[in-house]
């Protein structure tokens, strides 16, 4: 270890720093310049930097970077795969729902058909029953009307005899003599006609 003149001239500023910080007294074992500017150490530092950093670079390039990259890619792939799987399951679920909806719609339609048929049948039966009842009722009504008409006709027929009797009695009371049966009958008939 010796101070070459070149070094001494090269770093005068560094030498000053030394004195200020009191290093000069104890830096005798080194070259006497500010240590980072001590160029006697440069060759060794560069050599060892090249060796260590070179090794580090190779290790990073060959082992660490591919490994971490692989881990990240693996995870990325796995996530993508899981997403795909989830998508597939969702599609399956959607399909199942669709099938279910379709079946439900079909069942509903079938139920509708059955209900409509049943309703129609019931309606038809009810209509038929009603028609029958109506027919029966109208038959009874017609019979009743006939009966009434017969009674009425009979009553009318009887009215003539009663009116003649009454008229005979009235005439007899009024004029003291009996009117002829023919006159009374004609008068009653005329009144009936007028009525």
């Amino acid at each position, binding site marked *: 270890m010796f101070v070459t003149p070149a070094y001494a001239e090269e770093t005068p500023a560094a030498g000053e*720093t*030394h004195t200020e*910080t*009191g*290093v000069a007294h*104890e*830096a005798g074992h*080194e070259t006497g310049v*500010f*240590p*980072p*500017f*001590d*160029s*006697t*150490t*440069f*060759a*060794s*530092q*560069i*050599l*060892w*930097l*090249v060796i*260590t*950093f070179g*090794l*580090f*670079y190779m*290790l*990073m*390039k060959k*082992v*660490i*970077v591919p*490994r*971490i*990259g*692989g*881990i*990240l890619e*693996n*995870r990325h792939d*796995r996530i993508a795969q899981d997403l795909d799987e989830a998508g597939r399951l969702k599609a399956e679920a959607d399909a199942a729902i669709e099938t279910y909806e379709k079946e439900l719609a079909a069942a509903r339609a079938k139920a509708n058909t059955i209900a409509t048929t049943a309703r129609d049948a019931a309606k038809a039966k009810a209509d038929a029953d009603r028609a029958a009842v109506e027919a029966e009722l109208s038959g009874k009504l017609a019979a009743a009307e006939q009966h009434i008409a017969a009674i009425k006709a009979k009553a009318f027929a009887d009215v003539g005899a009663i009116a003649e009797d009454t008229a005979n009695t009235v005439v007899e009371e009024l004029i003291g003599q009996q009117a002829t049966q023919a006159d009374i009958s004609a008068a009653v008939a005329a009144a009936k006609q007028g009525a």
Partner: protein
Amino acid sequence: MSNDPIHQFVVQKIVPIEIGGIDFSFTNASLFMVATVAAASGFLYFATSQRGLIPGRTQSVAEMSYEFIASMLREGAGSHGMKFFPLVFSLFMFVLTANMLGMFPYFFTVTSQIIVTFALALLVIGTVLVYGFYKHGLHFLQLFVPSGVPPLLLLLVVPIEIISFLSRPISLSVRLFANMLAGHITLKVFAGFVASLGTLGALGVGGAILPLIMTVALTGLEFLVAFLQAYVFAVLTCMYLNDAVHPGGH
């Protein structure tokens, strides 16, 4: 010697090696480069050895750093830039681990040596140059000729672009180096105050509380800086690599 804030940066030989008159000794700097690589690769190797589909805590950290750099590079240099991923990832992990290891008391900070940061910066710029010329040939020089600038202004702009390109390795290396160096010196100086004031009796012990608080605060700040500088180094690397991938596109 324990109070000397510069001593922590002294490179000391552990195994002297000399080849062809040049000193290639295995030093404490070399030792901590090895430690950095061992710590970073050991962590990344064992954290990911489970290859869990659901990551554990350490695997999450490894994956987070991977995705952090991946998104940074994709944003910075586009999908074509992803071929540089191992480089950017190695740089980030190396610088981050070296910075963090440097936060341990009595540990050597690899990134506080200008030659180390400069070598790393040259690696980045060298990659940009080699790949740029390999991929685009002389079209790579379009990098210095922004599109849409009037020809007269180009006389001014092109030299500026060239100077800014040339200053990149310097700014990239000095930024990291100076941050680590200054942070460690400040930390050591304040910690030194605590020790020296502490020997001055009761008043000194009382007075030592202030630098102690400062030291604690600065330690926190230095952890932030250690991460931030690794991040900045990686971000700038991505930006420079973008020039190699898309020389005309800025």
